[in-house]
């Protein structure tokens, strides 16, 4: 699996992501500078990582979504290439029109860093094939603006088409306002686009890939992607 991580000024989880990808795929990802206009030839997976691109100034993800490299990312996605957009990446993907909706400030108006439980809604996507549908995983979040909101029609469509792939839940998989730590609509933690090749999610599976750092629940996502490309090859 040949991955490329997009690096915008102010991004800060690109190293975490690179380490997780290297650990699980056995191959170091390419780091692609925001001012470049092309992705490395043969890229399988594009990752838009977490952080504070352009300081989150103006609006989270708004400036990054208009960076030169994003034209290449949009073209890559349009051709069916896989794009994994995490945290600030999710915000950027929404701003770039790759995914619907928007990430607003957390309901409690504070930055929150803690482990959360996610119910995996389906296992038949390239991103979630490493999990079972209904499985609950535990991964950290670290964001101030992760409260997913979209208009009623969009939410209905997302739900109707099964495009909500991760939902905040209790440890035993119940969706409950007490476990929806940022107030997201329908406890949405991650969604895919219509074609299923772009995933946006707020939590950080890349920070739970080693037992010594707490848990390994995040591995399934990366291991699943590796399998996906193995099968395709």
């Amino acid at each position: 699996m040949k991955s490329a991580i997009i690096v915008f000024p102010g991004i800060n989880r690109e190293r975490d992501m690179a380490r997780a990808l290297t650990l699980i795929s056995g191959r170091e990802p390419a780091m692609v500078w925001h001012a470049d206009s092309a992705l490395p030839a043969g890229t399988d997976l594009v990752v838009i990582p977490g952080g504070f691109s352009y300081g989150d100034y103006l609006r989270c993800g708004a400036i990054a979504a208009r960076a030169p490299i994003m034209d290449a990312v949009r073209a890559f996605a349009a051709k069916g290439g896989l794009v994994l957009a995490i945290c600030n990446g999710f915000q950027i993907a929404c701003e770039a029109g790759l995914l619907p909706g928007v990430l607003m400030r957390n309901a409690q108006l504070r930055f929150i860093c803690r482990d959360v439980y996610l119910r995996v809604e389906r296992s038949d996507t390239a991103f979630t094939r490493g999990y079972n549908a209904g499985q609950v995983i535990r991964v950290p979040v670290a964001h101030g603006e992760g409260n997913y909101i979209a208009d009623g029609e969009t939410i209905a469509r997302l739900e109707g088409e099964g495009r909500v792939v991760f939902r905040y839940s209790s440890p035993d998989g119940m969706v409950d306002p007490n476990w929806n730590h940022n107030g997201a609509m329908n406890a949405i933690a991650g969604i895919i686009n219509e074609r299923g090749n772009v995933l946006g999610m707020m939590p950080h599976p890349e920070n739970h890939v080693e037992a010594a750092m707490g848990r390994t629940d995040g591995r399934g996502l990366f291991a699943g992607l590796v399998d996906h490309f193995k099968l395709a090859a």
Partner: protein
Amino acid sequence: MISNEPAITPELIAQHGLKPEEYERIVKLIGRTPSFTELGIFSAMWNEHCSYKSSRIHLRTLPTKAPWVIQGPGENAGVIDIGDGLAVVFKMESHNHPSYIEPYQGAATGVGGILRDVFTMGARPIACLNALSFGDPKNPKTRALVAGVVSGIGGYGNSFGVPTVGGEVRFDRRYDGNILVNAMAVGLADKDKIFYSAASGVGMPIVYLGSKTGRDGIHGATMASAEFGANAEEKRPTVQVGDPFSEKLLLEACLEIMAKGCVIAIQDMGAAGLTCSAVEMGAKGDLGVTLDLDKVPCRETGMSAYEMMLSESQERMLMVLKPEKEKEAEAIFRKWGLDFAVVGETTPTKRFIVRHGGALVADLPIKELGDEAPLYDRHFIENKRQPVIDAASVKPPMPNSDALEKLIGSPDLCSKRWVWEQYDHVILGNTVQRPGGDAAVIRVNDGPKALALTSDVTPRYCEADSFVGGKQAVAEAWRNLTAVGAQPLALTDNLNFGNPERPDIMGQFVGCVRGIGEACRALDFPVVSGNVSLYNETKGRAILPTPTIGGVGLLDAFTKSMTIAFKAEGEAILLIGETRGWLGQSLYLRDICGREEGAPPAVDLAAERRHGDVVRGLIRDGLVTAVHDVSDGGLLVALAEMAMASGIGAVLEEQSRVPAHAFWFGEDQARYVVTAKDAQSVSERAKAAAVPFARLGATGGAVFAVDGERPLPVDELKRRFEAWLPAYMAGSSA
């Protein structure tokens, strides 16, 4: 032109925080009346914050050397060797005055400043800690200060991308008018690639890098060197404004040009901005410096020389670059979208010369600006010792189970989750132990080594007996590092006190420094960096003496780090160390009995060392399953914390003749609680080392049961432990 050159009057001198005799010293030194800009430069260099004029004479007594110390105090940060060609660079610094005036920006720029100190030396920051002291929760300002400071720390550190993994939060009415915000940053560098601030070579270009200079923070360091009056809020314009985005870019750009070998010397612009950084680089290198202010990138037009020299705008650096690498360095900075300007050069004259608009605005002897700063051996009186309180004379006002419930739900002992959940503590993927334990543990790169980090001080002990309090702060930091299995290596100290011109305050300072020095020597735990913050007073009322100790320790294997949580049912709970039931200055005496008195617990450094070495050995050899240092609140609080961290209960029994409340809540030092599958092997180790040892009970069940007391369900304890701070911040309790 002359509009920025007002006549030098006694009022103007006083406004610059200079005493009449200090001004006389300036006139004698330069042989004439200083210009307005020169007066500003002197006030920036000679204030307490930058010159350490009241503290230097005492700081010299601290031990700063050990075979593993690469750089002690005097540089931007301390540097220690951790083997494998790696060095740890760290320092703690206060941002107290600004954080009270403007909590968000004050705290944010405190974090920014300390991060810059670390990466200026060539290290990539890997962790931050924060020690925070706030006023009485009932004070109407406290809640807003907590909210502002915490979100400022998070706002800067989270965006910069460094995990904030530990620290302390305390409340006391003595901090009502002067909160303390002490920020510590820790970085990792290659041992042979440390960068220093001394310039070398004549005619070398001096380069200004980073953000533009604006009118913020002018006189910040001078403001921080004075007491607050009734008008503290009016000083808001002296607080700087932080931009973590620029700092992140500055970090990446600096590390990149360092890696490319472009840098001869580097100094960040912190307190007193351009003035302090330029003078330090020149003076340390025995060189003169000429600055042309017309070249300085400015955020606004029409800034005077005076304003430019005193601005404390953030995210700026000054460097001496290798001339042949100048173009390469400039290209790197342009790539990161940062300003880059050659603003001066080094000269052989040892003069500090500043030009602006073609005119000479300062011409001063560079060495004397720093070296000839006033040095005071201030008069001090030692604190009056308080009597030792006999535990038998303290009547318990409530059952011990009630007291425990009250203590763990109190502002000082309750869970600080509300605070540290606002800090990204998992970024970089190396956080082995998150906040909430004895010390944070951060893996070094891909391992196997790890660093343990903690910050500690018990201000009420320091006030009751400064010498003992100074010792205790160091001993507790050493103990916390030990409790996670680390070998303590070195510390940074952040000494927060009131007005040193008052002999009783100066006495606190001197006592604490002596105590710190004695403990450092006894524990082989040298001071490698630090910061002094004096004049933490409002309307003549000083803070509690608060010498915060930031400790760094090393684990050989991150997989062997020990935590406080009980691990399994049916394990033996053991106490290492002696319990005499010391209630003087305890939280039990203060919060349960309403008495703030007595001598603080004695600190026996030989016992600390002996007990700690045994505990570290037990961890290393896998003989214990959980370890927790016993400190604020005493034994029962420590045990409850171990139960709450695991959800596993305990059955406990007193094993001494000490009155029960004193046994469970006394704050005797040099103690650890450990759990073990096999108590025998632990007791053998303790006996062999002549370390006092007692069996307290066993883990198990879901109830915390102390012999003769009402049993407490662990989940109920936990609910109380977690309840106070969120409720307080939501405005529903005080």
